[in-house]
């Protein structure tokens, strides 16, 4: 039974492909080619290169059996998948940031939050009892508080350098994020052995990274 693996394009994907190659299973992938599907016939594995936010969609709908995705995306999509393995790569934080000294929690005020992750932001602030209005943005989130579009932002923070360069700072860390190996729920029933094997191989490579 063949396995279909969804890999995100971009930096996370590059790291994943490196791992697959050193684990001895990703040789058929040629990152320089413009092809998006690579097949390893001898091992019966098919790799698909997708936009990172689409990995979950492909896995959840069973087009891919397993995939690599950041926990941020998994939370935002509230995906009905298995979160089988938490990797040592793609580590960062999902945080609330804003102009230095900005208060986040204010009773009776609706906080304006600009973010790529409106669902996650909504749930987080709900649990804290703070009413918010989300403003969905697709990039350059840091600009929103500076230009007065929002009070704060909710975004991925790795080093904090981008924030600093734009006069912002982390006001509160929300969640620890890392890359995860996810699996379709039904695929996992039919291909448990194959899926566990590939995770075992990758986890060995994953330990070496830190």
């Amino acid at each position: 039974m063949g396995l279909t693996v969804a890999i995100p394009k971009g930096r996370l994907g590059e790291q994943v492909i490196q791992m697959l190659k050193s684990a001895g299973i990703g040789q058929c992938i040629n990152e320089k080619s413009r092809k998006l599907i690579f097949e390893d016939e001898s091992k019966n594995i098919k790799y698909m290169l997708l936009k990172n936010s689409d990995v979950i969609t492909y896995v959840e709908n069973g087009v891919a059996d397993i995939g690599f995705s950041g926990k941020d995306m998994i939370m935002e999509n509230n995906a009905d998948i298995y979160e089988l393995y938490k990797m040592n790569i793609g580590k960062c934080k999902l945080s609330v940031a804003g102009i230095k000294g900005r208060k986040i929690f204010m009773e009776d005020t609706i906080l304006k939050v600009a973010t790529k992750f409106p669902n996650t932001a909504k749930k987080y602030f709900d649990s804290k009892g703070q009413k918010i209005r989300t403003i969905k943005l697709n990039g350059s989130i840091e600009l929103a508080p500076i230009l007065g579009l929002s009070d704060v932002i909710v975004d991925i923070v790795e080093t904090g350098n981008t924030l600093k360069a734009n006069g912002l700072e982390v006001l509160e860390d929300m969640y620890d994020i890392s890359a995860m190996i996810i699996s379709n729920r039904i695929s996992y029933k039919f291909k448990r052995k194959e899926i566990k094997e590939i995770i075992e191989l990758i986890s060995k490579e994953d330990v070496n990274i830190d």
Partner: protein
Amino acid sequence: MFSNQTNVYKINEMLWTVRKYNKERANMKFLKIEDEIKFSQKMFKLKREIENFLSEEGYLNIEPSILEEYDEFREIYSKMDKRKTVKLVDNASDILILTPDITTGIVNKFMSKWEENLKLKLFYYGKTYAHNSVEISEKRQMGVECIGEKNGNTDINVLNTAIKVLKKYSNNYLFELGNSKFLKGLMQSCSFNKEDYNNVLNLIYYKNKQELREYLSNLPYKEAMSTLLNIFDLEGSFEEIIKNLEGLYMNDLMKEGIKELSKINDYFINETNKITYDLSLVSELSYYDGIIMRGYIEGSNKEMIKGGRYDSFTEQFGPKIPAIGFSIEIDELIKTLYKEEL
């Protein structure tokens, strides 16, 4: 610390609401009359085949009612998502709902007038209704309920019927069995508070081993946690599970669950490649208590059959009456069977 919150945030989305029910429209829309008639004929044939089969197996047909009383239903179906039910108001200003769950409707109808020693083997075909964010979705459902009988073979017989239904339509089917007594017993011995209970259950639902380990490491240690930490190894063939259970903590309820599964495994010993077990199975309906079954067909991305034993559900009406049943996702089945044509 933060990763714990990751899960807190998911609680509200809990498992109890039938997940992702809303994502797709259940009813197909056709552009051409011809296509609609064709589809209707296929559905008619499929329905009749399964109904005939269930009838031959000794199940009696019952027609489920579409309307239920809101207050009454809410009381017994505590996990019902109030926002999702489709409500109607009658002349006396009483609120009615279009049924969101047929099993609950049947139990509600019969339990209040239950007579001792009654044994019912029933099947139904009906539609369930729910609001999704855009519209009201209508879903076809067929199912089997076996109420009042519990001897050594009841679980096996019902499971056998379920297997035969899927077998009729595909050779590439797979059944997955669990027993809610195992997880229930395990969770009891861990004596979590409500928040931890939900979070742990959520992590189990997502098979998130590392975060489960992290989460448990922040809680006071209990012996039962050793089993909880290994719960994701308790899946696969029954033999594997028994092997992996060695040396792990088990209480009486958990042992009872294993014993029930062991009996089933003995009976279906020749079909071991079609039956797999998962002791971490979390049922989306809290009323299951005992065997949980799921049936899949390769090529479909949904559970084709869902069911289990729900004795304690009947208890809400008075005496505890043994009951087990399953439902068939007939909309999904027809899509899978006629994948190319539809």
